[in-house]
């Protein structure tokens, strides 16, 4: 799931203040689940902005709110077409994709980001997500006991632990497990330590010529499933 953090209220107000009529748009998928930009958070931000506005010397704003199911898909974004007609700006609480998708559809409308999109995260407990995938485009989790060194090692190195690991923790953050110690222990349990003895060459960054495009062969589509430029 994509996980984001709402921006500080002051920063949001700084972006919003120049526009009189602002539509706050939530997203019903990832941003709702991670408690950052769903219906509830949109309503909360709406009230907070009204409050901050009432205490400012710019009290002519008209805020409104609307949450669509997914900001990353055109058919849902289309539902905004009517809502934005009389607006000066959209404040999106969608992830970076959602914000840009709205900007692309409504090309004369300023779209402001209400969140900092952070990670592709795995939920480990209420309110905690860990970045266990960086979408590198070259998955080799079969080789590393299902633990990704690219995402979970601070250096993303491929040939075993660096010299900085101590008590099974990472040198860059002593609260964080060393991914390579985890990989070693799990490979040992699986009887696959030979996988750690193999040499892994440098990553091929050509698989991520940014920005990437994924064209999949889906019903009605004609892609080849390759990740490409």
């Amino acid at each position, binding site marked *: 799931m994509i996980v984001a953090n709402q921006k500080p209220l002051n920063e949001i107000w700084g972006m919003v203040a120049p526009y009189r009529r602002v539509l706050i748009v939530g997203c019903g998928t990832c941003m709702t689940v991670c408690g950052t930009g769903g219906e509830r958070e949109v309503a909360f931000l709406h009230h907070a902005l009204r409050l901050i506005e009432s205490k400012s010397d710019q009290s002519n704003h008209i805020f409104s709110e609307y949450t669509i199911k997914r900001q990353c898909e055109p058919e849902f974004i289309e539902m905004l077409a009517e809502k934005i007609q009389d607006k000066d700006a959209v404040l999106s609480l969608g992830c970076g994709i959602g914000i840009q998708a709205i900007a692309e559809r409504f090309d004369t409308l300023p779209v402001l980001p209400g969140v900092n999109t952070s990670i592709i995260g795995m939920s480990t407990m209420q309110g905690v997500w860990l970045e266990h995938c960086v979408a590198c485009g070259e998955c080799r989790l079969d080789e590393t006991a299902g633990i990704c060194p690219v995402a979970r090692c601070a250096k993303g190195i491929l*040939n075993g*632990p660096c*010299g*900085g*690991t101590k008590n099974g923790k*990472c040198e860059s953050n002593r609260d964080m497990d060393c991914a390579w110690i985890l990989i070693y222990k799990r490979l040992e349990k699986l009887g696959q330590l030979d996988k750690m003895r193999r040499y892994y060459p440098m990553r091929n960054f050509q698989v991520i010529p940014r920005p990437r495009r994924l064209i999949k062969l889906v019903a009605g589509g004609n892609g080849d499933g390759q990740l490409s430029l």
Partner: protein
Amino acid sequence: MVNSLFEEKLNSSEFLITTEIGPPKGADISEMLYLIDLLKDKVDAINVTDNQSSVMRYPSLGGCLLVKEHGGEPILQMTCRDRNRLALQADLLFAYSRGITNVLCLTGDSIGVGDHKEAKPVFDADSVQLLKMIHTLESGKDMGGNDLKGIPGFCKGATVNPEADVIAPQLIKFDKKVEAGACFFQTQGIFDVAALRRFMQYATRFKVHILAGIIVLSSARMAKFMNENIPGIIVPQNIIDELANVEKGKGLKKGIEIAIRTIKAIREEKICRGVHIMAIGNERVVPEIIEAIKVPSPL
């Protein structure tokens, strides 16, 4: 083929001593030049650190050039933290062209431990891949598969931590570094000679040269600071206690004593090929340590 004077010495039976200097924070190289002149004839090679602990400094390549120009034998420390494969290869070609032919291949400390915490960590390669990269250059090709005009050759080194708390994965990495072409290793700081002995029982099966890292401590506070802040360093409690029990201002003297004691033990027992002295800001005392261990030991 022998690629450097240091490699020639590795192939001899001498007990080798290397040391290292950290370049300055700034363009004033006078202190570094003083240390180069002080140390160049007393050691077999001088490492120059590469933005050590992720703290931005004068470059290791520039420092090595000064060592070379002043008649010393430099070991270029090269980390993968700050340069991608193009920059690493370019620097290696430059180093070779100027007679800097010993390279210590390191992954590099995390950006977060240093003084530019907001910088982008590169890590296009890791230490094993850097060794392989050099091997590729030595075969006359670059990492893009293109032919080189003028083929470099290096004496390649790497590091290992014999005192790592979980040793098995470190040994797997050590094996990979050997396979990737490392011919010498300078270890992380050794405080427990028994741990070095255990490591050497493992390492002697490989045709590589091990130089035991010797850190010159100057106080119990420094030892504790290093334990908490310097990646990979584990100063044991008995050493910290030893430093804590001396009079104020005598810490460095005690640190020198511990270093001499450790080196003598390694040398007398012929545990490994030599030592690598890391004085971390107190490089001026390195000649004193070398003088003390010169006293002929019963070989």
